[in-house]
């Protein structure tokens, strides 16, 4: 007999296990099944930098959180409703986030004395009553999986055991009424050719988990989350790094210039290099350089040669590129530098997000060296932010920073696929003719944009030399003239400042138009800030929200927007970097809300911070 079905509006599931347990795969497959059902989703992988920390240890725990709902959602969720813990270490590191009454599913087989010891448990939490507050389901996942796979030939006991993540996925798929067909197709595609028996074992484990749900008395009901109402169109699930890669490929096509990526492997940016290396049929050249400096240098060389040049990295790599970016400022050549921010300083916490590179990309170079800065606000927005960064770089012949972070990079959400025809035209022209009385002056600027002509090698008659020494206005010859340096310094600054007239105004989300508190965020905190504002409004409060995606220059109406509100709250995953900029630039007495924990901000804490400010009034 089918079990009763309970309707839910929103669910947050977290899978946690050893980094060898395949939790990222389990999570991403559950996401895919869920996306196909039409729920709105938001995901957050949370994994250690160590590839394989000692099995069963606390540092080796890898997690994946998925939020899905029958309505539009903005974040992966603050706290899970359901925690799947594959071993004691996963339980220990994740239990603090599970609210009382939450559902807890554990692999009972993994709670051995040795594993308990590794996780630092003096007593077995399954037996000492410490989990009484939760709806605990102790399931011998390992035994059940190994038992189900007994008849599959060619699979070692170790391999059978490793399929337990698929058993767990099958069980969760049953519990929430997800169809496992897409996961079966995925497993066949992934293992079918090389190890068909492994594909068979994983599929069998998946189905066994599903069947276990149907028959076990452990679960009395199943749940249903109806599809969300979403704008019509074709969707796919996408991570920030993937969207950013697609945005760069799109920019190459939209500009008509070949894409050149110089990169050095670094977490969490490597996936962009790996992704782009697979699209050589788009004319994409990827160059894995000997170091971060060479990666940026090669990109500058390619820009000189007429490519759409990009270099990707994270904070520790970007500091090394600063010298080359200074050169690109002086050469006035287009270059996009992607900084996928991670927790610092120094090596910091490589897999964890932060917004702590803002002041570095604004000011971390010698001399007066302005660089436009664009920041993505969600995983799918990385696509559009990449096109915008390329547009500005090409039009204004300047290096441009594109900021993302580890949360956007690895997190995913459904993406309403844009029509290619609706994407902006970012084409540019190379100089082909002398531009002044039969001569070519490489620093004779366009009157409107102040951009200089881009004359690429191979163009007869325009041979010229550029370099890092100060340039004479118009001719580009070396100049030590004091007045000229003053002029060129101001021209470079004016060129970047002038971009303000060519970017969208700052939009404010203020549904009733009578809020007195404005929350000002930037980049990747869009989701939690918007969700926090919704909570305040749902409780009857009034609050306005604006999210900055152009940080240099700021949108031209920024000062006007800030002055419209009595109080301005600036939440950031740093100690107040945008706060410092807006206070300095606009003389506004804004206040910060700051947490630097290596985790995304939570809607709940934003809500509290807003309420605290509202109450002060």
């Amino acid at each position: 007999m089918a079990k009763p079905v309970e309707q839910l509006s929103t669910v947050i599931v977290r899978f946690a296990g050893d980094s060898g347990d395949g939790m990222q795969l389990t999570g991403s497959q559950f996401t895919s099944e869920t996306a196909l059902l039409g729920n709105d989703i938001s995901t957050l992988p949370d994994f250690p930098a160590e590839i394989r920390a000692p099995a069963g240890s606390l540092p080796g725990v890898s997690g994946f959180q998925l939020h899905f709902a029958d309505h539009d959602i903005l974040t992966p969720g603050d706290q899970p409703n359901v925690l799947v813990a594959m071993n004691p270490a996963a339980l220990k590191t994740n239990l603090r986030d599970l609210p009382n009454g939450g559902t807890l599913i554990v692999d009972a087989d993994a709670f051995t004395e040795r594993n308990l010891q590794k996780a630092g448990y003096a007593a077995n939490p399954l037996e000492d009553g410490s989990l009484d507050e939760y709806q605990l389901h102790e399931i011998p996942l390992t035994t059940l999986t190994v038992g189900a796979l007994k008849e599959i030939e060619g699979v070692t006991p170790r391999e059978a055991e490793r399929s337990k993540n698929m058993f767990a996925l099958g069980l969760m798929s049953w519990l929430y009424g997800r169809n496992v067909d897409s996961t079966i197709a995925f497993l066949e595609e992934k293992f079918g050719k090389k190890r068909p028996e492994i594909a068979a074992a994983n599929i069998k484990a998946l189905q066994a988990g599903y069947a276990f749900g149907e028959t076990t008395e452990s679960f009395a009901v199943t749940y249903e989350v109806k599809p969300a109402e979403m704008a019509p169109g074709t969707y796919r699930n996408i991570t920030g790094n993937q969207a950013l890669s697609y945005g760069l490929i799109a920019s190459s096509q939209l500009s008509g210039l070949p894409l050149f990526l110089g990169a050095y492997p670094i977490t969490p940016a490597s996936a962009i290099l790996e992704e782009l290396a697979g699209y050589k049929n788009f004319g994409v050249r990827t160059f894995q350089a000997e170091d971060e400096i060479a990666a940026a240098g090669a990109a500058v060389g390619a820009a000189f040669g007429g490519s759409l040049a990009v270099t990707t990295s994270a904070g520790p790599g970007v500091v090394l590129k600063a010298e080359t970016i200074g050169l690109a400022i002086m050469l006035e050549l287009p270059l996009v530098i992607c900084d996928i921010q991670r927790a610092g300083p120094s090596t910091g916490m490589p897999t964890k997000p932060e917004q702590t590179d803002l002041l570095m990309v604004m000011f971390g170079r010698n001399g007066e060296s302005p660089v436009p800065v664009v920041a993505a606000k969600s995983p799918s927005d990385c696509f559009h932010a990449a096109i915008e960064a390329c547009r500005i770089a090409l039009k204004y012949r300047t290096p441009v920073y594109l900021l993302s972070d580890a949360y956007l990079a690895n997190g995913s959400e459904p993406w309403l696929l844009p029509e290619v025809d609706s994407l902006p035209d970012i084409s540019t022209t190379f100089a082909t003719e002398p531009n002044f009385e039969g001569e070519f002056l490489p620093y004779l600027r366009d009157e409107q944009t102040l951009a200089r002509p881009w004359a690429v090698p191979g163009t007869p008659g325009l041979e010229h030399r550029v370099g890092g020494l100060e340039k004479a206005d118009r001719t580009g010859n070396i100049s030590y003239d004091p007045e000229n340096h003053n002029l060129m310094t101001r021209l470079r600054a004016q060129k970047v400042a002038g971009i303000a007239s060519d970017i969208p105004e700052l939009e404010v989300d203020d549904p009733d138009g009578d809020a007195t508190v404005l929350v000002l965020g930037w980049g990747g905190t869009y989701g939690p800030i918007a969700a926090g504002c919704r909570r305040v409004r749902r409780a009857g409060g009034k609050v306005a929200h604006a999210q900055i995606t152009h940080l240099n220059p700021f949108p031209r109406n920024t000062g006007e927007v800030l002055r419209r509100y009595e109080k301005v709250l600036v939440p950031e995953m740093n100690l107040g970097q945008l706060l410092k900029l807006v206070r300095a630039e606009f003389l506004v007495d804004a206040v910060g809300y700051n947490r630097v924990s290596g985790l995304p901000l939570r809607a709940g804490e934003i809500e509290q911070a807003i309420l605290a400010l509202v109450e002060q009034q």
Partner: protein
Amino acid sequence: MSDGNGNGSLKLTAKDFRTDQEVRWCPGCGDYAILAAMQSFMPELGIERERTVFVSGIGCAARFPYYMNTYGMHSIHGRAPAIATGLAASRPDLSVWVVTGDGDALSIGGNHLIHSLRRNVNLKILLFNNKIYGLTKGQYSPTSELGMVTKSTPMGSLDFPFNPLSLAIGAEATFVARAIDTDKKAMTEVLRAAAQHKGTAFVEIFQNCPIFNDDAWAFVRDDKDGVNRIYLRNGEPIRWGAELEHGLRQRADGSIEICPADAPDLLVHDSQHESAALAFALSRVTQETHGGTPVGVFRNIQRPVYDELMAEQLSTATAKRGAGDLAALLHSGETWTIS
């Protein structure tokens, strides 16, 4: 149109390669001779000026691009090989030259140098070696001898120097040569071979700094009688000396010693030898150890060229999967439609 290695028929003269910029090296600097040799050699290649690019880093030598009427970039300290790699890899139609010095190439840019050599990008790297920092006014460089007294080493340098050719050979360079700034004829021969080489060509040029390290190379530079220059000519036995009375031969352990020119086992130079051992052994032959120093092409082998391989991968991928279709890319993977 010529290819990037100079097989064109264009008629140019040395004058075509001069710029209107005043040359600003110290009087007597070896760079003048190298510039003059380069300007008179370039027309021979028949490559259009617009398809020739000189890239440099920082240092006295790095001013070179300003004086060549081609495309050029005077970049940042040590990074020229990296920048030139990006240019050559994305534009295989260009003839790309890197001009560098011993500090630029071997100190701050050491990493870029060795990696461009192993990749075999189609670059011609000219290292002007004067064994001193010139532009920063006289500190010791990575080729300065142990114990050398300079502004930054009043009690003598503690650093053991690099042998640039040994380093290049160890870094898997496919073309390694040496020339002397004032020896125009031999330098032109070396430049010609470097230009024709497909891949990275590394040329060390002994260059005199009259201000901070004058006469560092006097033993070969001023050697009008040819007493100390050992000219390497491919396929010929290695003989040298005023009367060609000396020769070189290899010991059983691979190292090289001096022998009489009429010795039966005289070493026959083979720059194309599969093993780098011979070129390496020759690079260890110096004035200090052997009383003579080889000049010419040490090593010249063929290996697939990085930029060609990269272009090949692009065309293979396109042949296999068709030219990229953006709409299809966006719609790849699992999608669902809401109506």
